[in-house]
């Protein structure tokens, strides 16, 4: 594992920096496709599996298949077999920002002891219920609060968090519009 001055957050920064250099001259290899397959179970309950993806010019496979259950809570008159789909957005954003914090900290030689992000998505469900056409379906706003214990000043920690947003795939996907195509095969 990479260590800079004995700092180890478990991120192999050198490998990432090497990849950045290597991919500069090979944009084709940098083209990834992430995939998931969702199967409807019953009601608003579904199961999604993730196993394969494409990248570095070839088909790739995760070490193991992951399975995610989505449903809605009982207050929605559902069976609550799992979290709601929109909560998966919080899962994605929180884990992406945390990964970013760890990577940036490693690169800047900051030892982390603990990182915890609490996410809150404000959601007016009148949108999805069609109760008010002026209310959007998605989040009205997302708030992320980090609690970080590290060998660093508050200023440096704020800089870590700022930089992690700058390089976050999910932060970008949530804050910027994305072209989405939905078709029937």
């Amino acid at each position: 594992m990479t260590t800079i001055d004995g700092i180890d957050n478990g991120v192999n920064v050198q490998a990432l920096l090497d990849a950045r250099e290597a991919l500069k001259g090979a944009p084709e290899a940098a083209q990834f496709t992430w995939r998931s397959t969702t199967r409807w179970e019953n009601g608003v309950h579904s199961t999604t599996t993730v196993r394969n993806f494409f990248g570095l010019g070839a088909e790739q496979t995760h070490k193991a298949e992951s399975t995610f259950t989505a449903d809605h809570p009982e207050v929605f008159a559902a069976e609550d077999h799992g979290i709601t789909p929109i909560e998966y957005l919080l899962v994605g954003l929180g884990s992406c920002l945390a990964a970013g914090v760890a990577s940036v900290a490693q690169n800047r030689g900051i030892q982390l002891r603990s990182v915890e992000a609490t996410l809150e998505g404000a959601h007016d469900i009148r949108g999805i219920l069609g109760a008010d056409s002026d209310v959007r379906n998605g989040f009205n706003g997302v708030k992320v609060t980090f609690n970080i214990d590290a060998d660093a000043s508050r200023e440096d920690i704020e800089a870590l968090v700022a930089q992690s947003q700058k390089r976050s795939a999910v932060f970008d996907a949530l804050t910027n519009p994305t072209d989405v195509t939905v078709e029937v095969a």
Partner: protein
Amino acid sequence: MERTTTVVVGAGHAGLAASHFLSERAIDHVVLERGDVANSWRRERWDSLRLLTPNWQSRLPGQPYDGSDPDGYMAMGEVVELIDRFAARTRAPVRTGTTVTSLRRTDDGYHVRTDQGEIACRTVVLASGACNRPSVPRLSEAVPGTVEQVTPFDYRGPDQLPDGGVLVVGASATGVQLAAELRRSGRPVILSTGEHVRMPRTYRGRDVLWWMDASGVWDQRHDEVPDLPRARRLGSPQLAGTPDRTSLDLNALTATGVELVGRSAAVRDGEMLFSGGLRAVVSLADLKMDRLLNTFDAWAATTGTDDEVKPAERFEPTRVPSATRLRLDLRGGEVATVVWATGFRPDYTWLDVPVVDEKGHLNHDGGVVLDSPGLYALGLPVLRRRKSTFIHGIEDDAREVVDHLSGHLARRH
């Protein structure tokens, strides 16, 4: 065919500084200029523009500022006069009205084709400018035709724009200056803000650019800058040269009623969609400004300069509205004009030498063009130092680049 040792392309301050050092070394050369000396300042700037660098920094090799207002900021006429004076004093062999239309390699140098004839030479200095074209993002193509679109090259002043609201895209020096001017003209102004560089106009009683100069930040060399590609992409700081020396950061704009929104991300169905990441770019800019001010403070403490300046200060964090707008209907009439203050790029379409990468940047190391011996560049961002694109930054770069060029000539013959 006409022969000379060196052809300099462009008679802005960079080309003229190259000419100065070439003359000093008695290297035979001509400076080819498609328009007049200082053409960019004459034709490609808006009416109210003043330099954001203070007068005492408007110095060129052998020509310090000798006016009566060292802390002021030059208007465009004064900049043209400054560069004209330099050209005359150095007796630069400038040929105005001569456009270079093609540059090709030959066995022993370069073949320069112009609209006034052809020249063979052994070395070439590209001083044709880093800002030949406004760079406008592709999404502009989807802006409805009912909305007027202008770039800083078309823009002269508020009177020229139709009545109604303006969306200014980009919050570097150009964007904040135009947003302020358009707001003063009474128009509603929305400023779309991506990554930006915040700076106070004065810090501890001195011009912030005095600090950049004195503390050595501006002298940092290209081979010492940690992330050079990033440093070369960096936008200009949010500064304006106004007589009252006030800061023109986002807080100042908000106070005049300018509305802040995130980066312009896409146009869809006639609506401009803005990023929801405004708070992130703003806090990055605040953090970076504080880091820069820390550098200044540390320099002042170690050099014993603390007594000559006012006490350290910190500035209010940038205020971001609790909810920023994510979309703007461009067909609704709220906005009559979009101003693209999204930066500038060089134009190398006339360069028939394969030295430009897929993004349109010249491949060079400190102004020595890679894989094309005898070809040099000046005036590009962080060419050899952080100050490279500024008027006062040209002296060191031009001297060193001409040193290299002269070494090249000596090696070959």
